[in-house]
C-alpha cells in the first residue's frame, strides 16, 4: 500500500514537471503582453519616492509630466505647448484638453499646481527654482521662476513631477500611492510585492491607447537568473545588460541587442584642496599617464567611447580642446615640475563595489609606469560618498549618470564658492565672477559660449579626469517594435512599444 502511494506521488510529481500544457509561469503570453525584467521592487507609486528602478519605471507608465525629453530636448506631454517671457522668468504651459485620470476624473490646471507644489514641499532644491505656480484657467498653468533656470524643463520632466489627481490624493491620503491614479498610458492592475507589478493599458489615455494591452514588471534580483529568464522566453525585455554578458546573447536570434551612448561616464575625481593631488602638476601628470583606450577595452569590453568632457557637462561640451591625452613622457615632465619631483608619490584610488576595481587596476598600472604608486581601496557606495563629501580622498573612481541638461546650472552648483560641496572644486571663489556673468546672461547661445569657455579653463586644471562614456543598452525579444535606449538607463515608457 505504502509502496503504491510513493509511486503515485512520484508519478504526480513527474507529470507536473513534464506536461507540456503547463507553461512556465511568467512565460510570454502572446502579442498582448510585454514581460519586462526589473532588478528591484517598487517602494510605492508616489512621484515623491523614487528610490528604485521599479519606482521610476512604474511612475513613467502611470503618471504623465508636463514635458519629457527626446535627444536632450523637451517635447510636449501633458503640456501641448508653452512660451517663455522675455526675461525667461515666467513660463506659460497650455495643457492638452480632454485629458482624464484613470479613475475617470478630468485633469485640470489645478491638478498641475497641486502636484508641483507638493513636489516643492518635498524637495527644497526644486522649490528654490519656483517662485509661484498658478492655474490661469482650466488648461493653462503659469510658472514663475526665482532665477533664469534652463534646467526647469528637466525638473518638470523628472519622475518626481508626475501629475497627480488632487481630489483623489486628498481623499485617499497615503493609500493614493498604493492604488495610484494617474493619466499615463498604463494603469496598475496588481502589485504582488517583491515578485511582479502588473499594468494594463489605460483605455482613455489622452495620447491614444497603448498597442500592448498588458505590461508586467517581473522582479528578478539576480542578474544571471534575469538573463536566463530572457533566454528561455519567460521575459521579453531587459535593460542595462552588463558588458560581460553581451557575448551570451549576441548569437541568440530570438533576442535583439540595441545600444546607444549613455549619459553615464566613468572618470576620476581628484582632490584639489589637500594631499599630493592639490599640486596641479601632479594632477596633470596623472591625466597624461592614463591610457583611456585601455580603460575602455579592459573595463568595458570596448563597448564605451573614450570620454573627453567633464562629469557635469560632457553632454554639452565635447572637450575637443582637452589636452590630456595618453602621453607618459609628458606625464613624467609634469611630475618633474611638481613640488614632489624626485620623491616617492603614493596615492589612493577609492572605488566602490558598485563600480568595481577593474578600471582602478588599469589606472594603477598606468601610474606605476610614471613612478606613482597607487593603492586601491574598495568600499561600499555609502562610504565612498561620505569620503567624497568630506574631502577624505586623493582620487575617487566613479561611473555616475548626468541627467541635468543645463550646463550653467551644473557649473554653478559645482563651482560657485558658496555651493562647493566636494574637494574636487575650489572654495576660494576664483570662478565666482564668471559664474555670476553666466547666470545673468539671458541669451542662450552666449550663455553656452561662456559656459564652455569656463569649463575649458576648469578642465585644464585636471581636477576631474574623464575616462569612458559608457554604452547604454536594452535586450529584447526580436519582433518588439518602437524600442529605444534611454541614455539614463531607466526612463522607459512602454506606451509606443508594439509587437510585430
Amino acid at each position, binding site marked *: 500500500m505504502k509502496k503504491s502511494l510513493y509511486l503515485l506521488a512520484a508519478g504526480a510529481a513527474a507529470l507536473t514537471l513534464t506536461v507540456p500544457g503547463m507553461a512556465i509561469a511568467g512565460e510570454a503570453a502572446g502579442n498582448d503582453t510585454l514581460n519586462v525584467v526589473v532588478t528591484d521592487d517598487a517602494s510605492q507609486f508616489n512621484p515623491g519616492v523614487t*528610490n528604485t528602478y521599479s519606482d521610476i519605471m512604474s511612475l513613467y507608465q502611470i503618471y504623465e509630466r508636463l514635458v519629457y525629453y527626446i535627444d536632450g530636448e523637451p517635447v510636449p506631454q501633458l503640456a501641448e505647448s508653452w512660451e517663455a517671457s522675455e526675461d525667461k522668468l515666467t513660463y506659460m504651459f497650455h495643457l492638452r484638453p480632454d485629458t482624464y485620470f484613470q479613475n475617470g476624473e478630468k485633469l485640470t490646471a489645478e491638478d498641475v499646481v497641486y502636484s508641483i507644489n507638493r513636489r516643492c514641499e518635498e524637495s527644497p532644491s526644486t522649490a528654490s527654482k519656483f517662485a509661484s505656480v498658478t492655474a490661469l484657467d482650466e488648461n493653462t498653468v503659469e510658472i514663475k521662476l526665482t532665477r533664469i533656470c534652463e534646467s526647469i524643463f528637466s525638473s518638470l520632466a523628472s519622475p518626481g513631477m508626475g501629475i497627480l489627481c488632487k481630489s483623489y490624493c486628498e481623499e485617499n491620503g497615503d493609500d493614493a500611492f498604493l492604488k495610484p491614479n494617474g493619466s499615463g498610458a498604463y494603469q496598475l492592475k496588481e502589485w504582488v510585492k517583491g515578485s511582479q507589478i502588473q499594468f494594463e493599458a489605460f483605455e482613455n489615455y489622452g495620447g491614444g491607447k497603448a498597442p500592448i494591452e498588458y505590461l508586467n514588471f517581473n522582479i528578478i534580483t539576480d542578474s544571471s537568473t534575469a538573463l536566463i529568464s530572457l533566454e528561455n522566453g519567460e521575459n521579453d525585455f531587459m535593460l542595462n545588460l552588463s558588458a560581460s554578458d553581451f557575448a551570451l546573447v549576441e548569437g541568440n536570434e530570438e533576442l535583439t541587442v540595441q545600444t546607444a551612448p549613455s549619459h553615464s561616464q566613468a572618470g576620476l575625481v581628484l582632490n584639489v584642496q589637500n594631499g599630493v593631488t592639490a599640486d596641479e602638476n601632479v594632477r596633470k601628470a596623472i591625466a597624461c599617464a592614463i591610457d583611456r583606450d585601455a580603460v575602455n577595452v579592459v573595463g568595458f569590453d570596448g563597448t564605451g567611447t573614450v570620454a573627453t568632457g567633464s562629469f557635469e557637462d560632457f553632454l554639452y561640451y565635447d572637450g575637443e580642446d582637452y589636452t590630456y591625452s595618453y602621453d607618459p613622457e609628458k606625464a613624467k615632465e609634469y611630475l618633474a615640475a611638481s613640488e614632489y619631483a624626485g620623491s616617492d608619490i603614493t596615492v589612493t584610488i577609492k572605488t566602490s563595489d558598485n563600480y568595481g576595481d577593474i578600471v582602478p587596476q588599469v589606472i594603477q598600472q598606468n601610474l606605476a609606469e610614471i613612478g606613482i604608486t597607487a593603492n586601491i581601496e574598495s568600499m561600499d557606495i555609502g562610504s565612498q560618498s561620505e569620503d567624497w563629501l568630506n574631502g577624505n580622498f586623493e582620487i575617487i573612481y566613479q561611473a555616475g549618470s548626468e541627467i541635468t541638461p543645463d550646463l550653467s546650472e551644473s557649473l554653478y552648483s559645482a563651482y560657485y564658492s558658496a555651493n562647493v560641496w566636494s574637494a574636487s572644486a575650489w572654495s576660494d571663489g576664483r570662478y565666482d565672477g564668471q559664474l555670476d556673468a553666466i547666470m545673468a546672461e539671458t541669451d542662450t547661445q552666449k550663455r553656452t559660449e561662456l559656459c564652455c569657455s569656463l569649463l575649458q579653463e576648469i578642465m585644464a586644471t585636471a581636477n576631474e579626469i574623464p575616462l569612458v562614456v559608457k554604452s547604454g543598452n536594452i535586450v529584447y525579444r526580436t519582433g518588439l517594435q518602437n524600442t529605444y535606449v534611454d541614455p539614463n538607463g531607466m526612463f522607459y515608457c512602454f506606451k509606443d512599444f508594439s509587437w510585430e
Partner: protein
Amino acid sequence: MFSEMNKYIAKRLVMMIPIVLGVTFLVFFIMSLLPGDPGRMILGMGAKAEDVAAYNHRLGVDRPFLVRLVSYIGDLMHGDFGISYRSMRPVSEEIAACFPYTLKLAFAGSIVAYLIGIPLGLFSAIHQNSPLDFGGTFVSMLLASIPQFWLGLMMILLFSLHWKILPTSGIGSFRNYIMPVLVTALPEAAIMSRLTRTSMLDCISQDYVRTARAKGLPRAKVIWKHTFKNALLPIISTLITSFGVSLGGTVVVENIFSIPGIGNLLLTAIKAKDVPIVMACTILLSLIYCIFILLADIAVAGIDPRIRQIYLKKG
C-alpha cells in the same frame, strides 16, 4: 511535574527579553557605525545637500544615538517597528508581506531535507562500511560542500534554460518553488543524513541493542524499535532548531530565485541602510531562533525522562 515544566518554560521565555534587547542594542549600534547617511544613500550623490538634510530630518536620523535608541525601544514595546526609510511604509506591513514566503520555503525545504536526509542516514548506518555507505557519505559531503548559489544557478541552467520545464524565478505557482525548495533542502539533508548515521551507529553499539539481537529479535524490529527510536533524540533536536535556522538562512536562495521573503528584504535593506527594516528582521529572526531552541529543548525533555529531570532540577 507539569507545573514544574511550565515554570521552566516561563523562565526561559523571560530570559528571552534580555537576549532580544541585547540583539536590538548591538544591531542598532553597528548600524549607527556604518558610514553614509540614509538620505544620501537614498537620494544619491547628485542630490543637493539641503534635500539630503530634509530627508534625514524626515527620517529622524539626525537625532543623537541614544535618543534614537531609546525612542526605538519605546516604540518596540508598543509593537511599532517604525517606518521603512525606502518605502516610507510601516515596517510591520513590509515584514508581514514577506514572511509567508520565507515560512513556506523554510517549511517545505525542511520537510524535503528530512525526507531525504533521515532515510539516507539510516541506510548508511544499517549498511555501515559497505559501498552503499561510502556512496551515501560521498553524496552527503558533496551536497554539504556545494555552495547554494552555485547549485541554484546550475539547476536554473538545466531545468529552466536547457530543458525549459521549470520557471527561473517568481512565486506564481507550485512549480516556482521546486528549485528553491531543493536548493534549500539538499545541504540540510546532507547534514541530517550525517547526523542520523552517527546517532544510529552510537545506538547500534549499545548493550541493549546487542541484547535485543541476542534474544533473537528480527533485524527490522531491532533497528526500528530499539535503535532508531533512541537515535531520534539528537535528530529531533536538530530537526527543530534547523527549521529555525532555515527561516533566517534563505537569503541566498531567495535572492537567486527572486522570492520576496525576509532574506531578500533584509539584503535590500542592508544595501540601502534601511535601519528600521534591518532592525526588525534581525530582532524577529533572533526571537524565532530562541523560540525554536526552546521548542527543541521541550521536545527532547518530553521524549526523554532523564533530560526532563535535568531541566526540572535547573528550573
